[in-house]
């Protein structure tokens, strides 16, 4: 039978040879599962309950409520879950919420102390903090936050990095030719488009930021879209002028130079300090803002890698072939050239997730950019600092951060070995 060669299969085979990396991959998969099902594993709401003749699945419903799909039914809205009488009920494996106060067991109750709980079922297996919040539940929900931070910020990093890196690498300083009239008129057009995108909508944006970070970034995204739309429309106006020989003469746009300057600016400001500076302005900082800021700071490495790969790839024959077929630049870059530049990107993404989680936990450790109700590994660790006896508050979140960061780094190493045989020992 004919064996079909699959690149993905080959990489997986190579990756499997690296035993620590494979172990790390499995461990991270388990952690990701915990993150995904955090609300079911640890929740103060029951998994299933029969209450006043109706059947509910509150812990599952919580996902939908968090996403804004459904609302709590009125009879469940202000329910104190623990003190109600149910006809039948199944509690979550860890029957405490991350932000639930257990006033019977507050003031740093150690896991090994006697706890004021009904039975071993309700034991705080990792102790509690000052307000009686369950540390195990905090660590489980912190896993969710950490993975969310890693995924969201690295996604942003990838989008910006790949886009700018491939443009800079493919066009270089000389290959993007635009007509003279476009070159000069766009210096005027960009401020005008900026006016329509951002200036006109300035108060809409700031009002929605005051409401919530989601709306705020949504509005900024919309503004950016309007900016691009306005710029495109304005550029259509120049169509007739291109026919005049002097104005229509092509000049090179030094895209590589511009993008490299942008990279230099972003790289030069230490990310942590810039995030601190921006968070200081924002009225309602939240984890979501921090995630986005980490993403906006971290794309430079990926852009550089993609650019370097693109410089190599664009000289290859198949790119010439694509060009000679008359494919558009867009198609040549993103369908033909880019897939051949992705090797270092996967590696950088794995390391990037580790870095993003580390940055976020540093910030929440310092208490910067976290709302008081957010529970993250960093904020748990910070809570442990104020009580020197509370080793369970210092050790567990710290070990969690360390393991996740190490294992993402290990995956990065494994990917390096599997994807990039040039660097092989």
């Amino acid at each position: 039978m004919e064996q079909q060669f699959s690149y993905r299969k080959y990489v997986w085979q190579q990756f499997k040879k690296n035993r620590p990396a494979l172990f790390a991959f499995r461990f991270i998969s388990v952690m990701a599962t915990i993150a995904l099902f955090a609300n079911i594993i640890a929740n103060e709401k029951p998994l299933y309950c029969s209450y006043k003749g109706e059947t509910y699945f509150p812990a599952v419903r919580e996902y939908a409520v968090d996403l804004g799909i459904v609302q709590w039914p009125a009879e469940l809205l202000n329910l104190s879950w623990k003190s109600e009488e149910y006809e039948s009920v199944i509690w979550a494996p860890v029957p405490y919420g991350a932000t639930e106060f257990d006033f019977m067991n507050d003031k740093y109750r150690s896991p090994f102390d006697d706890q004021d709980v009904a039975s071993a079922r309700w034991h705080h297996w990792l102790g509690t903090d000052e307000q009686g919040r369950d540390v195990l539940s905090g660590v489980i929900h912190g896993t969710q936050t950490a993975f969310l931070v890693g995924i969201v910020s690295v996604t942003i990093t990838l989008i910006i990095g790949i886009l700018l890196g491939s443009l800079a690498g493919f066009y270089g300083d000389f290959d993007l030719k635009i007509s003279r009239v476009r070159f000069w008129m766009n210096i005027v057009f960009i401020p005008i488009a900026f006016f329509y995108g951002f200036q006109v909508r300035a108060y809409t944006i700031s009002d929605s930021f005051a409401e919530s970070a989601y709306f705020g970034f949504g509005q900024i995204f919309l503004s950016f879209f309007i900016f691009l739309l306005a710029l495109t429309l304005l550029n259509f106006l120049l169509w007739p002028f291109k026919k005049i020989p002097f104005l229509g003469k092509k000049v090179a746009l030094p895209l590589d130079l511009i993008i490299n300057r942008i990279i230099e600016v972003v790289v030069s400001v230490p990310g942590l300090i810039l995030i601190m500076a921006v968070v200081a302005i924002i009225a309602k900082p939240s984890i979501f803002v921090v995630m986005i800021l980490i993403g906006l700071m971290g794309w430079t490495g990926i852009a550089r890698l993609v650019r370097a790969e693109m410089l190599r790839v664009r000289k290859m024959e198949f790119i010439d072939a694509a060009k000679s077929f008359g494919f558009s630049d867009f198609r040549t870059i993103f369908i033909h050239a880019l897939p051949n530049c992705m090797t270092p990107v996967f590696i950088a993404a794995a390391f990037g997730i580790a870095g993003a989680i580390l940055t976020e936990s540093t910030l929440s450790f310092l208490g910067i950019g976290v709302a008081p109700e957010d529970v993250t590994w960093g904020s748990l660790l910070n809570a442990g600092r104020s009580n020197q006896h509370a080793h369970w508050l210092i050790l567990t979140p710290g070990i969690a951060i360390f393991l996740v960061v190490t294992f993402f780094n290990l995956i990065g190493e494994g990917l390096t070995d599997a994807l990039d045989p040039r660097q092989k020992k």
Partner: protein
Amino acid sequence: MFKYLLKRILFFIPTIWIISLLTFVLSVSSPGDPVELLLNTAGENGQNADKQAKQVEYDEMREKLHLNLPVFYCSISSLSEPDTLYKIPKKLHRENLSRLLDLYGDWNLVSDYYYALHSLDNEINLFIVSDSLKNQLIELKQNITDLYFKHDDAVVQDRILKIKEFTTVIHVAEKEASQLASKYEALHMSEVTWKSYYPSLHWYGMNNQYHIWLTNLLKGDLGISYYKKQPVLELIGDRIVPTVLYSFLSIFIAFIVSVPLGLNSAVNRFSTKEKITTVVLFVLYSLPSFWIGTLLVNYLTNPLYLDWFPSKGIKDFEDSASLLEKFVNYSQHMVLPLFCYTYSSFAFISRQMRGSMLQTLGQDYIRTAWAKGLGPKQVYWKHALRNSLLPIITLMASVFPSLIAGSIVIEFLFTLPGMGLLAYESEVSKDYPVIYIIMLFSAVLTLFGYLVSDILYALVDPRISYSKK
């Protein structure tokens, strides 16, 4: 070569300029009125004479901070927006007017309303009332003050209604109050015109806030801290020594240890000992420094567990102590913070050194060196080391920013009075000028780091040709 260096330095300037612009934009968009934050006069209550004195003080401070000037050389705004909005003294009033303008789009009506409000305010302030009506007057004044900050239609309508009620009760400034009401009515009726969607560019010339800010910056005037009321330059000057000392010491130690370590680990890469070293380095590299710091502070400086080191990073001895005592004391204090500063960059550099050494060992000239009969010492330490050190030079630059960022956590943990702790403190107390200047400062330092490492690289590595690239 010279050309390359010149080009490199020329590119350095626009980058710094853009960063300064970014800093300025952030500092302009920070919330609150800088003048009031500096004068500590948030809220506008008080007696007449007091109020006037405060107004004078406010204007003086505003002049001193050059906030009476336009923000930038030019501005893009809608045609409906006047180019003289910056002349309205109070920042919060200005913002509210700009809001109203955004809502209704006719500057003439907005300014009519503002003047009506102003004249009502003045009229009421001159008025002295009998004790029985005092409470009403206070409430009336409160309502008027509110109007300066509100733009939401329902709220404004409500306040105006209340003002009208109170003025008829007290019999004061009824004319002004109804004037205000009619002006607001006119404003409210007006439609947003095409003018709001028509961009216009204003040119203000050199006499603007940014220009003065930038020239002051170059002269060394970095602004005044809101919280400590001290010049920022002084604050940074007080705090820079520990940070620089620790950073340089830790870079030095990291390089001294990690170069031979990385080299050895690459050379004997098949021995068990080196395999363990690699694993340890990897673990060290991923250990978060804030966690290690917390553990060290909690378990090594604590009478409950092991009280080996002092927990604070500053000296605690009399000035009369002998030199040896001072030295011992200083070094005791420095061990833990220095360890935290160093270990992660040390692990990073070692790993890089190992990688770069491995690459060098695969080169042809190493085989040549072996072939001509050189001993291991000659081959590794002379031929291989030199070339594998080259990429490490560039690391200097990238280690530096992470040290500045790391200093925040470590100085916070050990209460070391350095730049990082200053950044943290000003973040917590919302001391914007200090945060932004630290940001600018660290960016400039980092850029210098890159510049120096690029130049060094160009000097040491003769293989790279810079003429074409």
